[in-house]
């Protein structure tokens, strides 16, 4: 279908508006992080930096615990992501393919996990983790992140699995492939976009998780960025330059992840399989 000129105009103006709404805060944060303090708090804000300095980043990485928080966050988020994907894929396949009593009911039930306000589950979980000695460990955060990401991830992956034509799986069954091989060698490559979606969802949820990280972690050296960073802000009044530099630094791993995983978002993976 060809677009007329007015249609194109409306389309592109819409795109520009959306781009501004989403992009401006980022622009503000990133450019702010390299402005000298005087320019940041100037009465008339500058759209384009008039000055350039790395002093905020120097301070962030040399005189705060930010590097430790960064390492903690990356570790927690990576482990949470890998474990979630590794569990969600077989679980989704089981819901998709295996016949067992209560399958439909159980499948509907798993999303019920999100029905409880987090704060309600926080207290019993704290009590439980205290008993098993998980308080003040990064492992506890990984467990929490996986537990919260898993139900949704299973749902998402199951719906991706259902887009794979059934005959492909049946052909593999006839070819003598066991379920594990079908899942890993046939299905997983064909639902790469689904795996990527789940990975990004889990990574970002873990990356930004605040409540549990603030309660379960006690020592400063084990904090993740959201909690640790809140400390930095309080600790040294409001140092806007430091705040913006920290915010910038915190988004970089996410950007790298997108660049890496984004390549999996390709369409037409099953093209040529059937028809």
């Amino acid at each position, binding site marked *: 279908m060809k677009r007329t000129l007015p249609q194109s105009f409306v389309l592109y103006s819409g795109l520009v508006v959306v781009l501004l709404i989403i992009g401006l805060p980022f622009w503000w944060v990133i450019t702010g992080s390299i402005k000298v303090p005087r320019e940041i708090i100037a009465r008339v804000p500058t759209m384009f930096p008039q000055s350039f300095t790395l002093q905020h980043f120097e301070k962030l990485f040399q005189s705060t615990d930010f590097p430790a928080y960064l390492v903690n966050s990356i570790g927690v988020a990576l482990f949470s992501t890998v474990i979630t994907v590794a569990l969600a894929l077989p679980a989704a396949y089981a819901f998709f393919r295996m016949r067992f009593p209560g399958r439909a009911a159980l499948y509907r039930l798993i999303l019920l996990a999100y029905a409880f306000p987090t704060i309600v589950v926080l207290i019993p979980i704290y009590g439980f983790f205290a008993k098993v000695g998980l308080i003040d460990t990064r492992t506890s955060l990984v467990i929490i992140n996986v537990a919260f990401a898993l139900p949704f991830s299973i749902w998402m992956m199951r719906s991706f699995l259902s887009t794979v034509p059934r*005959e*492909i799986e049946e052909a593999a*069954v006839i070819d003598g492939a066991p379920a594990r091989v079908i899942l890993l060698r046939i299905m997983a490559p064909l639902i790469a976009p689904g795996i990527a979606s789940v990975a990004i969802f889990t990574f970002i949820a873990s990356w930004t998780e605040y409540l549990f990280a603030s309660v379960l972690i006690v020592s400063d050296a084990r904090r993740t960025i959201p909690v640790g960073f809140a400390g930095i802000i309080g600790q040294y009044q409001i140092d806007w330059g430091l705040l913006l530099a920290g915010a910038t630094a915190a988004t970089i791993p996410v950007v790298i992840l997108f660049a890496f995983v984004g390549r999996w978002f390709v369409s037409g993976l099953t093209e040529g399989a059937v028809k």
Partner: protein
Amino acid sequence: MAGLSLKSVKKRFGDTEVITGVDLSVEDGEFLVFVGPSGCGKSTLLRMIAGLESVSDGNIEIGGRDVTHLDPARRGIAMVFQTYALYPHMTVAANIGFPLEMAGLGQGEIDRKVADAAKVLHLEPYLQRKPRELSGGQRQRVAIGRAIVRQPDVFLFDEPLSNLDAELRIQMRLEIARLHQKLKSTMVYVTHDQVEAMTLASRIVVLRAGRIEQVGAPLDLYENPDNIFVAGFIGSPRMNFVTTTVSRVADGFAYVNADTLGLKEIAVRLRGAVASAGETVTLGIRPEHFGPNGAGSLEGTVSVVERLGGVSYVHASLADGSQIAVESRDSRAYQAGQNHAFAFDTDRALLFGSDGRRL
């Protein structure tokens, strides 16, 4: 290599019985074709033989071994799907080699067998391509390659040519026939296309609504159908049917009349079942059994003439409103709108009772 036998096989989906008791025995090396209208249960039956669908009742044996509850991979079968069902992320070579890899063969042996299969199927230049870089016919050949490398006892095909265009379909049909001559394995082939069935089969199984209507060699079904369904299904253009009344029965012949159509005392040989005077029966005449020297004749008005060059198909409407198709070698003899008496060979005509059974 092995034969195949089905013993009162049934399939229910919930409360609906889709296959209502099929008994069948297939000889080693036979090319058996299931044919029938869409939805009659051909795929379901084939999938039960493959083990992709459970059997509700009865049992299935392959090579004398009861496989009713065996895994598909252990039945000694290979299947080619209508939709090819290739692994889209693997190369042609990996697709064809996959069953061998699953069987635990070494890479050297896999490569050799894949190369052999590729040679048979003219796929050698495409081994490193992905399925999406192939044409429909090439994709289907890859699917066949994946089936033949395993050297199965029984090949199962589910409408493998339906997704191809007409020309390619004829070409692939020939290739499959050649493959059968070369491999001499048992093949079970599903199609809704009676031409495919006639040309490929050593025996045809005509299915309707989950049961077998007739089993036989292609020409047997054509010349000697058991019932009106098989008579109408096999042959193209299909057999003409006109309603007549029996006036008398004598010496193994029934004499039938249809006054409004110009049929008077047509003698039709009875096969076995006895007709009685006064009974309403259906007279079946194939289009090619019309001809100038026939003993019977039907009066009708030509509506359309399809001239194919060598032969023409003359479509005419009869006084009772029914339509007939008449094959003619004389392409210029008929014009739309004309009235004609179409003579036919009464020796080749068939009679069917009101329940559809051949008389």
